[in-house]
């Protein structure tokens, strides 16, 4: 797994910060007053092996991101759930655990929302052909539950084909 880390993080002073970092000035230069910053935007990218262990790794990084962005505990639980489901689908159904294929996860946080994209390198699937897992006829069928969970716990979930191949799921959680 390769973590590209926080690619960029813009900070600006704000009046009512939700998440702030104190950076005290050196002694003799207004010592004790400190300065308040809000982390307004940041992007973190991960490149994961197509292994089942990658689920926990993606969830671990997601937890770090939601902490930095100051999301509520409830929102954090939903993000954790959705990330695990999306990466599970990418590893098992998209890349079919092919060691030659990677799963790319990108977290983009802004003052309004957290956007997460998960890209696999699989051949894709027809979203319309996935059965509704809540239909009593489909309750015992294995497919569709992960997608339902992502839609339940995130504010928006969109699927698309990447122009260079693979499926991209883009999930948004509003703050």
């Amino acid at each position, binding site marked *: 797994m390769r973590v590209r880390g926080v690619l960029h993080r813009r900070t600006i002073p704000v009046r009512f910060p939700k998440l702030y970092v104190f950076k005290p000035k050196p002694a003799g230069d207004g010592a004790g007053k400190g300065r308040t910053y809000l982390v307004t935007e940041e992007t973190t990218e991960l490149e994961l092996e197509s292994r089942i262990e990658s689920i926990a790794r993606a969830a671990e990084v997601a937890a770090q991101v939601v902490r930095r962005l100051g999301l509520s505990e409830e929102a954090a639980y939903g993000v954790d759930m959705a990330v695990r489901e999306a990466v599970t689908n990418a590893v098992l159904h998209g890349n079919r655990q092919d060691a030659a294929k990677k799963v790319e996860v990108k977290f983009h946080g802004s003052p309004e929302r957290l956007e997460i994209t998960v890209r696999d390198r699989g051949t894709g699937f027809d979203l319309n052909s996935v059965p509704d897992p809540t239909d*009593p006829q489909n309750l015992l069928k294995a497919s569709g539950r992960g997608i339902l969970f992502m839609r339940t716990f995130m504010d928006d979930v969109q699927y698309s084909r990447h122009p260079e191949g693979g499926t991209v799921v883009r999930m948004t959680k509003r703050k």
Partner: protein
Amino acid sequence: MPNPFALQSTFEDGFSVIRLEGYLDAHTAPQFEQAVQSELDQGRTRFIVDCEKLTYISSAGLGVFMSFIEEIREQGGDIKICGLTPKVRQVFDILGFPELFDMCANREAAVQRFAESPLGKGAES
């Protein structure tokens, strides 16, 4: 360890009691699957799954319940689920589990439910 999961399986008073703890997802679900299969291999079909210490369940974890329930009921048994925390219970509810499974407050209630309805919701539908 980012994914703590523990499972304890015992056979008590005619019931296979499986206690789940921590995170049950695609990574750890095979352990749960093996525990259920191991009991079935011994001809035991009355399951109580104690989720009191379960902090998280994914669709893969729920899939284990789904994959066994028909076979277990065909053999005259059932799975009673007990001790769910509200957060985890919410996940079971999304998939309509209360329509399919008996969900009980605790192990005592699950044992009682077996006396009242040995085949659970399967017998009612």
